[in-house]
């Protein structure tokens, strides 16, 4: 079995990770070649069939002749190399070169680059020869005048820098929703994705109880990234999934923006099957059945078949419109949703309670926001509304560590932000029990008790 989420496949979008820790999304076309700038270039055909996650090295030998245009600088052509599979295990310093290290940097002051005997030209010459990046880096260490005087710590830093500069390595990975987010953050598109983080999305998917068989109401202002996270959890990249789940996406503009889904490997048919989009206007002021029926009446199959030429085309286009209208009516007025999930910058108190009217009792509501303050405002509104149970504001932050043994510590710097979530459940208030004459007092105490129960 070699599925598109396990093995590198033709016509697939994948994410390529470079030694510089940057990443790049590419589409794998038959006979295509991919330029990685200073890290070289390779032929698409050469990587097809390897497991996703494989790490390769580009090398050049006498036979290397082709070249490809640099994706960044036009008119700069990069030679296309051959590739070899790497083990994926990074060689440690000791394995590269049996070098000593110093206890401290005491003897090493302000010498800058003078100590490196290999000139940039020398290194460029070496690079053009068919040496592996490990060999190249070993040579660089060898020619370093005071490498041994560095502390092990500085040595590793130096090596890492050199590797990022000279290693012609790359990894081909599955373009998961998290990788796509990674890529966008890396590109600086933080505002576009509302400053969301992988951990916030993970929490949202679990709190939202997102399952392969649910029908979810959603606002997604991240260009489809939130929808992609949901699709991945629901269908796991499987275009032929038998699961019946649906996402109904309500949008504030005339047309929905789900541009990022083009990077996913879901087919157009798949997306049509599992995603419905509908504007706020159509959702909240949906046409009535009467209205659309007064504009158009479907013919029987035979009648439609008998239509001729232009009339037939016109009929089928109108039929399509009619079906869309029926779907709008269904989504806007009939479905009781299995959850509401939002990532929108619209004023939440004005939009969330109204959308929640269509959510089934006992189902979760999860709202993502870049800012805690907007969720605070929303939580006070929901708290005063008996249809919402226990609104909570949540924050989750992932703190990565350096995992060099003997030097374990949290990374010194990381991205701030990541957003916040509001979580609650849609509930159905009990009708006020009428029993005793002091009904009014009882009603008042209902509100208070219910609230009290929630805050406890």
């Amino acid at each position, binding site marked *: 079995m070699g599925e598109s989420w396990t093995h590198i496949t033709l016509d697939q979008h994948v994410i390529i990770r470079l030694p510089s820790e940057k990443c790049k999304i590419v589409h794998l076309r*038959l006979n295509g070649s991919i330029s990685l700038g200073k890290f070289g270039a390779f032929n698409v055909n050469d990587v097809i069939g390897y497991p996703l996650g494989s790490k390769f090295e580009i090398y050049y030998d006498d036979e290397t002749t082709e070249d490809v245009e640099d994706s960044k600088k036009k008119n700069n052509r990069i030679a296309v190399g051959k590739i070899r599979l790497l083990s994926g295990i990074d060689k440690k310093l000791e394995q590269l070169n049996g070098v000593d290290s110093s206890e401290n940097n005491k003897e090493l002051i302000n010498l800058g680059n003078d100590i490196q005997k290999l000139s940039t030209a020398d290194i460029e010459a070496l690079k053009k020869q068919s040496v592996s990046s490990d060999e190249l880096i070993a040579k660089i260490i060898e020619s370093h005048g005071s490498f041994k005087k560095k502390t092990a710590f500085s040595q590793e830093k130096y090596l890492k820098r050199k590797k990022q500069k000279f290693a012609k390595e790359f990894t081909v990975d599955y373009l998961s929703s998290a990788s796509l987010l990674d890529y966008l953050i890396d590109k600086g598109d933080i505002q576009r994705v509302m400053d969301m983080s992988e951990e916030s999305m*993970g929490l949202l998917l679990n709190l939202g109880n997102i399952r392969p068989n649910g029908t979810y109401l959603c606002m997604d202002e991240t260009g489809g990234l939130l929808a992609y996270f949901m699709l991945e959890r629901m269908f796991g990249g499987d275009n032929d999934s038998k699961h019946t789940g649906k996402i109904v996406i309500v949008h504030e503009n005339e047309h929905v923006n789900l541009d990022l889904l083009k990077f996913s490997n879901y087919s157009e048919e798949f997306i049509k099957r599992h995603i419905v989009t509908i504007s706020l206007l159509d959702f909240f002021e949906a046409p009535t059945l009467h209205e659309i029926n007064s504009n158009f009446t479907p013919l029987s199959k035979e009648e439609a078949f008998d239509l001729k030429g232009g009339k037939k085309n016109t009929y089928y286009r109108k039929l399509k419109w009619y079906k869309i209208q029926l779907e709008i009516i269904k989504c806007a007025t009939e479905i009781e949703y299995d959850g509401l999930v939002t990532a929108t910058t619209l004023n939440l108190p004005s939009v969330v309670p109204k959308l929640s009217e269509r959510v*089934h009792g006992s189902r979760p509501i999860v709202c993502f926001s870049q800012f805690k303050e907007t969720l605070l405002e929303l939580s006070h509104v929901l708290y005063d509304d008996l249809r919402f149970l226990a609104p909570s504001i949540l924050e989750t932050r992932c703190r990565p560590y350096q995992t060099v*043994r003997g030097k374990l510590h949290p990374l010194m710097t990381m991205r701030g932000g990541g957003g916040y979530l509001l979580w609650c459940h849609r509930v*159905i208030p*009990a009708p006020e029990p009428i029993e005793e004459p002091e009904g009014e007092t009882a009603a008042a105490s209902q509100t208070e008790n219910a609230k009290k129960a929630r805050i406890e």
Partner: protein
Amino acid sequence: MSYFTEYKDVIQEGDLALIWISRDNIKPITIDVTATFNTRYGSFPHKDMIGKKYGSQIAIRTKTNKKFAFIHVLQPTPELWTLSLPHRTQIVYTPDSSYIMQRLNCGPSSTVIEAGTGSGSFSHAFARSVKQLYTFEFHPVRYEQALKEFKDHGLLEENVIITQRDVCANGFTIKKGDLTSVTFSDTEESVDIGANAIFLDLPSPWDAIPHLDEVISHNEKVGLCCFSPCIEQVDKTLEVLEKFGWTNVEMVEIQGKQYESRRQMVRTLDDAMERLKDIKKRKLEGVERRKRQLENLENDDGNIEDEEEKKILEPQPLTEKTKYNPFGKGSRIREGDSNYEWKQVTKMETEVKSHTSYLTFAFKTMNKTRNEEKVGILLASLSKKK
């Protein structure tokens, strides 16, 4: 049918439901028309729930003060189930479990190994999303408890297999004769697991990691997460991961926080100044009154002057209750009382879970060779072009 994997509309006899009393008090019940759910506020007969929609609030009049008491009846989800567990139980909390599931790309293509099962709360979350979950518990009593719970929750008929096993000593392979929920056919001798995601919540994951090669999928990148409270465990784990060829090692901590929404009274400087002025005015009035009394006294006896004047000239605690009271001092004011202005604020929980465990992730691809099927398609395309 599992109450965790199918959306139910209406509360029915035999359902597993969660009764929400308060945030810290959520109780599972099995709906039984003859039964009653008792709280200290009063009793809720199940028959009043049956036929209502999930999410319904149920009201009764309390015996004591004739006010109303309320509960909500919810359909269980793994997250609500986690909240309903007693606090003393060691569980993987939702911020951790949801991150782990996200990082291991859990979805309908996932086959997951979990060791150990523990309270079973994470098992529920896995079961919701993955194709198949193999969970291992070495503690015989906890195994029996979890087996029963998974059965009651309908998980065993769906996608969960639980096995009693010390995976550190004996690995993960499930064989005929093992204490397990697997039913073997006559011809089967063992289960072909082929997991692509593994979660190890064990005191010494380094003892279990060497056994993984036998049970993980050979045809794809496999993800692993070790959940360890102490940093020294992480260190040992890192050593073994490297030794056994696991790569892309990353270690993180997840910090989940919850905030309360509160209101703080807006008390302006102007109001505070007005209040002080009011106090001063009343005090001066008092002083004047006393001065008059004093003058009367002085006419009687010059000696008393000293003590009385002292009282007047030195600041005195104010006895008269001030009339201008913009902040309602001295009275109990409900937060949000509409007679006052309020500022919305967030307050962190009084006690926070500052640490759960360190999460160590690693990945491994057993079979790194090219997939013949994919290469075949490639070759076919190439020959077509020629």
